[in-house]
């Protein structure tokens, strides 16, 4: 499969009705299944659907005004394909990736990775999900299709005019930046329409420093069924724990304990 991927300045509506200047990854399929590049949401790059054993060729173009590179977080690729800071390319340049997906099915992500600028560039939007599948693998019984949801958890500090503020204080630089607004899939106050049935939820904590302990507001259980790109051999305690970078897909049921109408678990 051949993809074209680029990073460019963009705008996104993170808070409803307010436009923010961001960076964003965009992509299209040059050769292969068009569904391999899913839609991006807000500032997030498109979700890349890859398959175990698949050869992937990607031309990445830097359309920013600063150095940038793409790191395939969690994928087992050769050193020169891994998007390390030493591989960062200057504006207007292109980096050619060519690797085979060796990983098991699971949830991974890609993000920018220049030295000293990774945190802020990710904060401004340069990240997206990678979902690896294996058509030859046995059915694991997990919900699929529109019952397979992905949530990217981040935080931002957003001025009323939409300006993203990042690491302005010495404390932020020394200890890691924490925004004051939770942003999920690139938007504040995300709403997801579901049916009262079991769902698989893939969670990525893409925040700089914030860890989150996830629960349903109704007190029901979230069951961790996989973490860091592989299924778990047993059910976990009913909890959802998400710290920056590891990817923990979970299976949670939105079925309320008693029949409800248009209620919400938040």
């Amino acid at each position: 499969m051949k993809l074209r991927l680029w990073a460019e300045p963009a705008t996104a509506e993170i808070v409803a009705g307010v436009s923010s200047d961001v960076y964003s990854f965009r992509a299209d399929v040059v050769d292969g299944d068009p569904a391999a590049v899913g839609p991006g949401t807000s500032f997030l790059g498109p979700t890349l659907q890859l398959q175990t054993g698949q050869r992937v060729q990607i031309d990445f173009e830097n359309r920013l005004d600063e150095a940038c590179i793409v790191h395939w977080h969690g994928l087992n690729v050769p050193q020169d394909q891994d998007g390390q800071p030493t591989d960062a390319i200057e504006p207007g340049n292109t980096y050619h990736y060519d690797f085979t997906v060796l990983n098991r099915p699971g949830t991974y992500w890609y993000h920018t990775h220049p030295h000293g600028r990774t945190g802020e560039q990710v904060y401004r939007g340069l990240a997206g999900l990678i979902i690896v599948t294996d058509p030859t693998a046995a059915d694991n019984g997990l919900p699929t299709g529109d019952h397979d949801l992905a949530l990217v958890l981040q935080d931002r500090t957003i001025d009323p005019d939409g300006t993203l503020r990042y690491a302005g204080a010495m404390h932020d630089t020394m200890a890691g930046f924490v925004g004051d607004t939770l942003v999920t899939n690139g938007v504040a106050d995300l709403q997801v329409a579901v049916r009262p049935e079991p769902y698989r939820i893939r969670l990525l904590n893409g925040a700089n420093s914030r860890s989150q302990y996830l629960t349903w507001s109704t007190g029901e259980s979230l069951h961790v069924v996989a973490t860091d790109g592989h299924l778990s051999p047993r059910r976990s305690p009913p909890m959802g724990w998400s710290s920056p970078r590891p990817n923990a897909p979970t299976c949670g049921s939105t079925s309320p304990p008693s029949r409800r109408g248009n209620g919400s678990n938040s």
Partner: protein
Amino acid sequence: MSADTFVEHGGGMGPGMGGGADLDLSATTAATFVIEATEPAPGTIPALSAPPGFTPGDAVNPDAPKEFVLSTSRMSHRINGNQWEGRIVTDIETVKAGTVELGSSSTSHRWPAPCISTASRSRWCPAPGTTTAWPGNGPVSATV
């Protein structure tokens, strides 16, 4: 879905040299799930088998598992006493792609260790407030 945020300073992608954990357990909303008014179909959560293609029997070093003793000293993270340096890959940090190696890691330091990505844990991370198995709070063992 609500999120009790655990603000763990340091160890993020941005500049930072790590530090103690500040706990902010105020609950906020990460996402709101609006449930359709249809008859519930609870289903069951599948009982999963072992991870496909990843068993200890596949390891190339069954008789000599790697050991990673993580520590922090003089503002730097260390593996087996040696300063971890991202630009220098040591033998113990190298695994041939497509192979499985056995190893264990341990740390008794309160700082999270960012230099190990855990593929499979021997036990689960607990909720905040408990005292074991979270890298920032006490000893933990893991398979990498």
